[in-house]
């Protein structure tokens, strides 16, 4: 067993070692490489699937962006937010209002929606930074309950219970020409929105991954692990917490902007507490603190309910029973993941992989192990979801 591992490793030492070194020496370059690979995968996925799967992927994109922001906040900085659904509502309503005017290009609108939500993030984050653990959850819970009420109160400008219809931007001619050039497929509106969503996912995740590996990310983890030690090391707690919250809020705002275009409406009933809780469960299922876990969580949120509804209908259940099956299965999945794999899907897989590799490294020839492996072997494992690469 150990021999084969060593043999495999010595068989292709060049590429692996080089990638490991790249990751150590220039995280930006390695993240860019991954993002580029992601872009190719996105184009392939969107061009090879039909319009319905495109729209599902667009849904997954906005869940992914919001979950990415939340996993950084909760996993790296230790703040539990139940208000991300409300922050998404801010982004969605901003997008709906700006798209109504048809004045700005859609990318500018998405940026503005993100910035506006970041500002709201400052307003919420400053008082929240004084709170700890469950109290932050409580404060953000209030946000989740209150924000839909704002839309009802200003029903003249925000559309009240019925919400604001979103006029989805037209596909720009050059964009559909490029897509046609590459794949010979026409670009429908839902595919265009899916591209916008996945472009946002890649950009957000690139920025978040870099941020997490930078000095800022290290201060976030320091604050999460031990406040006193972090303060002694010269880290200002309040500022660090607010920054983490604002970054996370900005992600939620961008997710809301994509959501508005995917759903084509911004209505209070779309941003209930269920949305915030769904995001949190998705992040926990995927693996708290990891961006790949956030993506897996988003995929589960998107694909699991219709899958089980269809299975239920296929098994001869009535419409009502099949509709009730999806939340049941989702709840059961959550229970089993918490019981059997408390670090989430990604956290557990990574832990298992790391243990196996360490065993191989101990048994075999430690002098061959690449620098990345030795440093991670030396790292304490008490935070399975602690790193975000």
């Amino acid at each position: 067993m150990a021999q084969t591992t060593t043999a495999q490793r010595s068989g292709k030492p060049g590429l692996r070692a080089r990638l490991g070194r790249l990751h150590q020496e220039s995280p930006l370059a390695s993240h860019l490489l991954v993002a580029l690979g992601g872009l190719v995968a996105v184009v392939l996925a969107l061009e090879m699937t039909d319009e319905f799967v495109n729209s599902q992927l667009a849904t997954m994109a906005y869940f992914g962006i919001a979950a990415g922001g939340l996993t950084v906040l909760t996993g790296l900085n230790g703040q539990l937010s139940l208000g991300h659904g409300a922050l998404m509502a801010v982004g969605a309503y901003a997008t709906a209002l700006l798209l109504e005017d048809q004045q700005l290009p859609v990318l500018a609108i998405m940026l503005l929606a993100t910035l506006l939500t970041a500002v709201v993030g400052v307003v919420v984050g400053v008082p929240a930074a004084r709170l700890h653990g469950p109290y932050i959850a409580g404060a953000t819970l209030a946000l989740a309950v209150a924000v839909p009420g704002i839309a009802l109160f200003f029903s003249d400008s925000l559309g009240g219970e019925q919400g604001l219809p979103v006029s989805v931007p037209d596909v720009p001619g050059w964009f559909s020409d490029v897509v046609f050039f590459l794949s010979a497929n026409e670009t429908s509106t839902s595919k265009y929105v899916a591209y916008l969503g996945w472009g946002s996912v890649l950009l957000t995740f690139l920025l978040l991954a870099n941020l997490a590996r930078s000095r800022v990310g290290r201060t976030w983890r320091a604050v999460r692990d031990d406040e006193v030690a972090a303060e002694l090391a010269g880290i200002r707690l309040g500022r660090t917490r607010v920054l983490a919250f604002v970054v996370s809020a900005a992600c939620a705002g961008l997710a809301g902007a994509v959501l508005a275009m995917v759903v084509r409406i911004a209505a209070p009933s779309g941003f209930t507490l269920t949305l915030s809780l769904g995001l949190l469960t998705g992040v926990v299922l995927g693996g708290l603190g990891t961006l790949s876990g956030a993506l897996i969580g988003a995929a589960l949120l998107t694909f699991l309910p219709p899958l089980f509804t269809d299975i239920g209908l296929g098994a001869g259940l009535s419409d009502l029973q099949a509709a009730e099956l999806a939340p049941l299965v989702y709840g059961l999945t959550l229970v089993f993941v918490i019981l059997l794999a408390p670090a989430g899907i990604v956290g557990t897989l990574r832990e298992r992989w790391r243990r196996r590799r360490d065993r191989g490294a101990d048994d075999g020839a430690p002098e061959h192990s690449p620098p990345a492996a030795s440093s991670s072997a030396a790292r304490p494992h008490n935070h399975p979801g602690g790193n975000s690469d």
Partner: protein
Amino acid sequence: MTRGIPRRVAVAVSVLTVGALVASCGAGGRPEGEGESSASDVGVTENSVKVGAHFPLTGVAAPGYSEIPTGARAYFDFVNANGGVDGRRIRYIVKDDAYNPTNTSQVTNELVLQDEIFAMVGGLGTPTHSAVVDFLNQEEVPDLFVSSGSLQWGDDPEAKPYTFGWQPDYELEGKVIGQWVAQNMPDARVGLFLQDDDFGEDGEKGVRRYIDDQIVAVERYTSGNTDVAPQVAGLAAANVDIVLGFTTPSYTALSQLVALKLNFKPQWFYSNVGSDPALVGSLLAQFSEGAVRDGGSLLDGVLTTEYLAGVDAPDDPWVQLWQRVWDQHGGEGQLTNYRIYGMAQAYTFVQALQAAGPNPTRDGIVNALEQIGSELEGPPLAAYRYSENSHMGVEGLQVSRLEGGAAEPLTPVLVSDIGDAPIEEDDSGAQDTPPESGIPEVEPVG
């Protein structure tokens, strides 16, 4: 060994290869002129027609509303068992949106893009259906008989050529209620209790056309906030004699409970949507945690409007048909007014499908409804207003009084339209009886 090829050459070759691959894998530009693909008969095969709908099967709006698709399904099964329409079985797909527009958008994508339905039939709810109405019209999917009385489903056929309303709109209902109050209680102080959306707004618009000067108090509630004590107290403080409620069943029950607590006893007049005695009665029992047992009788003397004969009229020929259908093809439970609603909608769809001819197309069914929709004889007490200029649904209703869970008509059927169209008496629609077979026989158009 690898030094054999200079690095620069290797890079150049790989760049060229990738470039060539990219250029060759796609179309490399658009062909001139594109053939028109006719998608007009999506969802129709030789022996089936696929239709879909979104309903709240789970969540807060599910009580009552989740029964509508069970009724529609029973009627479609009844038609299928008797040979279908032009030899085609109707396949009916229902998706749960939990009354959340985000979900409505997803399940509608699923219905239109994955299941490839021929038409949407009876999608429920104003905020929910608003999220998908543009998409359906953009995809040119017939969006028939939206289960909501908002004006936007039919007042502008040019903007939404594929969308048709079905039930009487809330403005028409408001006009009929307003006129009744003006004629029968001309000196009463009137209070309005409104849901804060299109429902309440359109209703108020209709009511104010007749009794603007009699209204002394207007209270609104937001769907989702279950505390209506301040609103009911406000109506009581204004000392109103009659309260006109444009409420959903839950809020009818809540307002009755609060009024009981405050010992506030005006004449109540609830719009059709919120006055189903069976559902309101069971909600009253549930909300009061059993303190109110016989909730249905609490509604004795309450006024409402009707446009469909309900389970309280077992001798009505339509209700007898629905009972027969439910006994043969229904699932668990009893026939309810919500199931009748679903069956009546399904009946109308079968009529429209027959009118669209033996080879139905999406544009064909829309065209057929515009041509002969206003002549269809069906379960509602009045005719539909379908034409090229209007896609509004049933044009009339009657005022009734609830007594022992049954509705006693107080007026003939009153027919009108939106805007300042006059209200007229017209009982002709109420004379329609179902065909012996229970399946409509409509001649194809054109």
